[in-house]
């Protein structure tokens, strides 16, 4: 066979480089176009409310008053509840699957966990309405109120629906993602690290705690961020259980609303331009919040990943 000439190989290189560059540019372009569209669409609302759109705490389509604070609050708090529940749970699952489970059950169990991530969110929403919400109303909320009712977070009417329901359903939805990715991270920790700790006379658990988890910490952080991203953007399941009332209340028993959920809810009924534009602007806020969170998360991962060198010279 004849060897391809030097020139044609160089040419292939150039084509390949061009194509990948193009693909990268398309991505950047897409993001810019979306951002521009959102900015353009939100012009009327911005002209009317200015930055008050972000600080305003009333969202009232009937009176044409749009402030997105309750939506941002609902988005952030429901995601936070989800993380508080999902992170320890997922870490437990990942550690069990990667380190402790008997060889035979590892593969089937891991598969099951990944399967959970593939269930459509509307199904989670239905389950939330018929199983989770009644349980929260009759069991969880009375229980929390009895024992932790002195905290402002656990006061008010037991609706079942509300911030707590949204947080829990989000937790259930992001647990498979976080645990599956964390499991991969733990499996990628080199045997030499485990053996180093074991050879010092560490127990299995001490080895996990002192060698495996620290080694995988940036990857685990990445997994958590992935989960957070899903929680913030989740729409369907949240809409079905959160109660859809835009308000800022310290109590997680209260009805609430998130950005993603209100857009899905009101878009089809928004007939005046201001309302439409306010929804687009809410979308823009979501876009910015997600972007900021991702940037912070990225920085965190880099910081942690670099930590060995970075930390020491301080």
């Amino acid at each position, binding site marked *: 066979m004849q060897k391809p000439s030097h020139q044609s190989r160089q040419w292939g290189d150039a084509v390949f480089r061009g194509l990948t560059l193009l693909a990268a540019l398309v991505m950047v372009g897409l993001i810019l176009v979306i951002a521009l569209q959102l900015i353009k669409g939100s012009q009327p609302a911005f002209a009317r409310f200015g930055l008050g759109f972000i600080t305003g705490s009333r969202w009232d389509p009937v009176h044409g008053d749009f402030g997105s604070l309750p939506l941002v609050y609902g988005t952030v708090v429901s995601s936070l509840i989800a993380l508080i529940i999902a992170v320890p749970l997922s870490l437990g699952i990942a550690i069990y699957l990667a380190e402790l489970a008997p*060889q035979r059950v590892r593969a089937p169990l891991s598969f099951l966990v990944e399967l959970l991530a593939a269930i459509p969110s509307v199904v989670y929403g239905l389950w939330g309405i018929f199983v989770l919400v009644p349980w929260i109303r009759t069991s969880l909320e009375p229980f929390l109120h009895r024992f932790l009712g002195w905290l402002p977070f656990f006061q008010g009417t037991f609706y079942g629906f509300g911030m707590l329901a949204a947080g829990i359903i989000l937790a259930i939805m992001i647990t498979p993602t976080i645990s599956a990715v964390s499991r991969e991270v733990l499996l990628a920790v*080199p045997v*030499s*690290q*485990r*053996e*180093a*700790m*074991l*050879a*010092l*006379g*560490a*127990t299995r658990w*001490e080895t996990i705690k*002192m*060698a495996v988890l*620290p*080694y995988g*910490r940036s990857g685990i952080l990445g997994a958590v961020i992935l989960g957070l991203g899903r929680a913030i953007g989740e729409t369907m399941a949240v809409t079905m259980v959160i109660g859809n009332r835009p308000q800022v209340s310290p109590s997680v028993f209260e009805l609430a609303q998130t950005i993603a959920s209100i857009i899905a809810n009101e878009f089809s009924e928004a007939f005046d331009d201001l309302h439409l534009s306010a929804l687009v602007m809410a979308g823009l806020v979501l876009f910015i919040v997600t972007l900021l969170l991702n940037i912070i998360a990225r920085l965190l991962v880099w910081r942690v990943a670099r*930590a*060995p*060198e970075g*930390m*020491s*010279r*301080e």
Partner: protein
Amino acid sequence: MDTRLMAEDFSAWYGQNQVVKNVTLPVFANQITAIIGPSGCGKSTFIRCLNRMHEVIPGTRTRGRVLLDGENIYANRVDPVEIRRRVGMVFQKPNPFPTMSIFDNVAAGLRLHGLPPGTTAEEVVKRCLKMVGLWNEVKDRLRDSGVSLSGGQQQRLCIARALAVEPEILLMDEPCSALDPVSTMKIEELIKELKERYTIVIVTHSMHQAARVADYTAFFLNGQLIEFGPTSAIFTNPRDQRTEDYITGRFG
């Protein structure tokens, strides 16, 4: 001479594959015992049986006894975790903990087992780093990561880490194979100094290294112990033809 460690009719398997076959080998107190033999003959597997590290690999099995000061470490009620504290190990590739500082690497074992009475972590870390000759090189950067050191320094750090829990015996599996000649020389010097206080078993690919540091040498072939004796005798006057073939470089 005191026998610190004694393998008796010891065998080890990976699954169905037997790679250590009925080995009986003594390890004498405050002596350096080298294990030599061609690649794949079971040296690493055998040395890992001496502190019950073999069993952390799934699907492995052992048979026989290993006596530590006369007590069988494979007896039922013996806790392998305790054995590994008493019989330390240094691996072929330096494996410091990358998320820990130099200081914390050495102190890692202290966090597991607590401090010896009347000492501070600072004292123990300093003493161990001095023992491995690393103190002067790192004393101004103890907060740096363990992986910011060179390969040879990392291996000495790993030795210091193993010494910090005050083991009675130190097992070393080709501790110099990833290192340059100068680092190798430093570690060989170190091993010779350590024998004052510790009993050492070292696996090595290099017959020269065995000849330079070891008091006793064991020759393994295909999982069997072919010959064991004082290093000088093994190298100058081997009794077995296969040993002679190996040390004269006729195979392996």
